[in-house]
């Protein structure tokens, strides 16, 4: 059985972390031990395959939107240097921000048809993962509402029955990262958790309808 230091020798040889003298000694051992040699060769091969299949740089999906989203968030941050506020932060305030964000929304396209009034809700940025879906936003004076319109979303099949809930209260359990939703009569209606891929899992207790 190998000792930990022998294990360390193996990987230090593999990763080029040995001194010349250590390397010479290990090479002698390798020549005399076919099992060790086979193990080293397999690990070498695996390292080379790992490097080949795990690129150090990848294309970021919606790269321009990635940058613009960071700029949106920086504008919401406290300035790094308080006195710098007037010189650089002000130009990033809301109206400019909306325009800048609108200009670089790559995934869909968004159009602010008019600037928002002080009491209007406003959509600052949009990210649509599905390239066939287009998003646009505008404010309707008549409805006194802000609209985020998603065009090109695949229709829900007509035979699918949509079960609605009436949720009045929720409790969240941070220990197990779940939220329990309660209905009108205090009954448990639904538990929301997330799976290992961080996608929501909805588990019904008392579906209506």
């Amino acid at each position, binding site marked *: 059985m190998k000792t*930990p230091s022998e*294990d*360390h020798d*193996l*990987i*230090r040889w593999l*990763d080029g*972390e040995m001194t010349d003298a250590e390397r010479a000694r290990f090479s002698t051992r390798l020549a005399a031990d076919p099992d060790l040699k086979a193990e080293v060769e*397999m*690990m070498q*091969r*695996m*390292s080379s*395959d*790992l*490097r080949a*299949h*795990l*690129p*150090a*740089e*990848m*294309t*970021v*999906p919606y*790269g321009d939107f*990635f*940058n613009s*989203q*960071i*700029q949106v*968030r*920086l*504008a919401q*941050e406290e*300035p*790094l*240097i308080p006195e*710098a506020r007037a*010189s*650089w*932060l002000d130009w*990033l305030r809301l109206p400019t921000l909306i325009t800048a964000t609108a200009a670089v929304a790559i995934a869909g396209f968004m159009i602010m048809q008019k600037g928002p009034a002080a009491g209007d809700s406003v959509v600052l940025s949009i990210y649509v*993962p599905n390239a066939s879906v287009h998003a646009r936003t505008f404010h309707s004076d008549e409805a006194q509402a802000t609209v985020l319109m998603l065009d090109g979303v695949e229709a829900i099949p007509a035979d699918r029955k949509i079960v609605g809930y009436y949720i009045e209260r929720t409790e969240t359990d941070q220990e*197990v*990262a779940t939220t329990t939703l309660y209905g009108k009569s205090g009954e448990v209606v639904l538990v929301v958790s997330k799976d*290992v*891929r*961080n996608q929501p899992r909805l588990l019904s207790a008392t579906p209506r309808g």
Partner: protein
Amino acid sequence: MPASTAPEPGEVSDSDLVKRCQAGDTRAFDVLVSRYRGKVYAMTYHMIQNETEAWDLSQEAFIKAWRAMPNFKLDSAFYTWLYRITHNVTYDWLRKKKMHGDGEFDDSRTEHRVAAGAEAVPRNEPAPDIALKNAELGKRINDAIAKLSPEHKQVILLREVEGLAYEEIAQTIPCSLGTVMSRLFYARKKLQEMLKDAYENAL
């Protein structure tokens, strides 16, 4: 050190951009984001293997970097500093997932029990007929990486993808050199077990 994406001749250097950021210039930061987003995204993607989450975590890494900018003394290359932040953001995320009991990364406790010949490949996966064909091997490697504990994943990616020396890995994590070596050894051993059939069938 990881291969840095050095600015092209005529481009503003990282250190000049950092100084402008420290003076509050968000446009300078935008240039740094464009320069390094591909590397930051690759690191997070390899760690968590989910496009949407990797995208969000990369955003978090850059935001944290912006917040930490006033404390960055330019005593290392900007990217070295940035990937430490990225690495910490991603590793914290993985640890939180693990604490929430996902059960995905449970190999850390078996680190000293990896026996030669142990069955580590899920039995419902058929032995590939053409195991070393590139696409198939790539998928097997990604699947195997996904099954490693955060600690093992961390050292393997820092070594094989980022090309860090042991000393640099120890500083990044941070931990002792001995821990780096142990984790690297057992991570490789684990991967070797998981990929064993692919290699054997190809030989």
